[in-house]
């Protein structure tokens, strides 16, 4: 049974969510979150993932404080209360 997951949207992408800085989707894994975004917010999804459904190279997806790539990628299972955050990767120099 999918659970309700909160996704935090970066400010620059809220134009694709009707101005909402967070959205709720029904999902058990990060992959299912992305699939839900693809269905419900396709313009937002295209900013996060490319046509091959891979997360874009300079986009980071966090579950709470943990980077998804380091957790095992989009199959990462979610737990009740988890918050998914989407960030542009930024580095200094």
């Amino acid at each position, binding site marked *: 049974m999918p659970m309700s997951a909160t996704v935090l949207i970066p400010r620059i992408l809220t134009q694709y969510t009707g101005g909402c800085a967070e959205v709720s989707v029904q999902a058990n894994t990060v992959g299912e979150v992305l699939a839900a975004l693809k269905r419900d917010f396709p313009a937002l999804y295209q900013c996060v993932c490319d046509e091959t459904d891979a997360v*874009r190279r300079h986009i980071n997806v966090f579950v709470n404080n943990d980077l998804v790539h380091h957790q095992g990628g989009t199959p990462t299972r979610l737990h009740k209360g988890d918050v998914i955050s989407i960030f542009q990767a930024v580095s200094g120099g």
Partner: protein
Amino acid sequence: MSDKLLVSIGTKKGVFVAESASGRRRFSLRGPFGPGVAVYATMIDTRGTPKVYASSCSPFFGMKLLVSSNLGNKFRETKSAPAFAADDGRAMANIWALETGKGKKELWCGAEPAALFRSGDGGDSWEIVPGISHHAHARQWHPGNGGLCMHTIVRQGDRMHLGISTGGHYLSEDGGTTFDP
């Protein structure tokens, strides 16, 4: 001489639009539009109501196509940008060339990785052009230092010349259905 001169300028910081009266002694500059995002291709479409188009390639969020219907005072995103099909295996990296087509709404777009797209509605929807994008040679092209990009489209009637780095020069004489090197 026309009453007004418009120049659209693609830069790494976005698209700028310069405007001058017919004398061309002074230019005013507007922009950047799509600020902070590189624009590799711009085009002023003078068919019907003039439109300014600009590619807008964000390294974070991917490809958009911007369009202005008021001589570059304001831009909006088109309803969609050219994109590969999910089962194609390629992902859009950039738009390198924009060109007008037949009638008032047909547009052509050269992309990276090298592929050609066509719109029949002024840029709101796009379809890949298989004659070159799925050409027998396509999967054998290799990127040069600047990437594998279709950077040049030159059209005259049913003749269309394409420049691809580093695929070479391809020509269609049937309006973009088939291409030969």
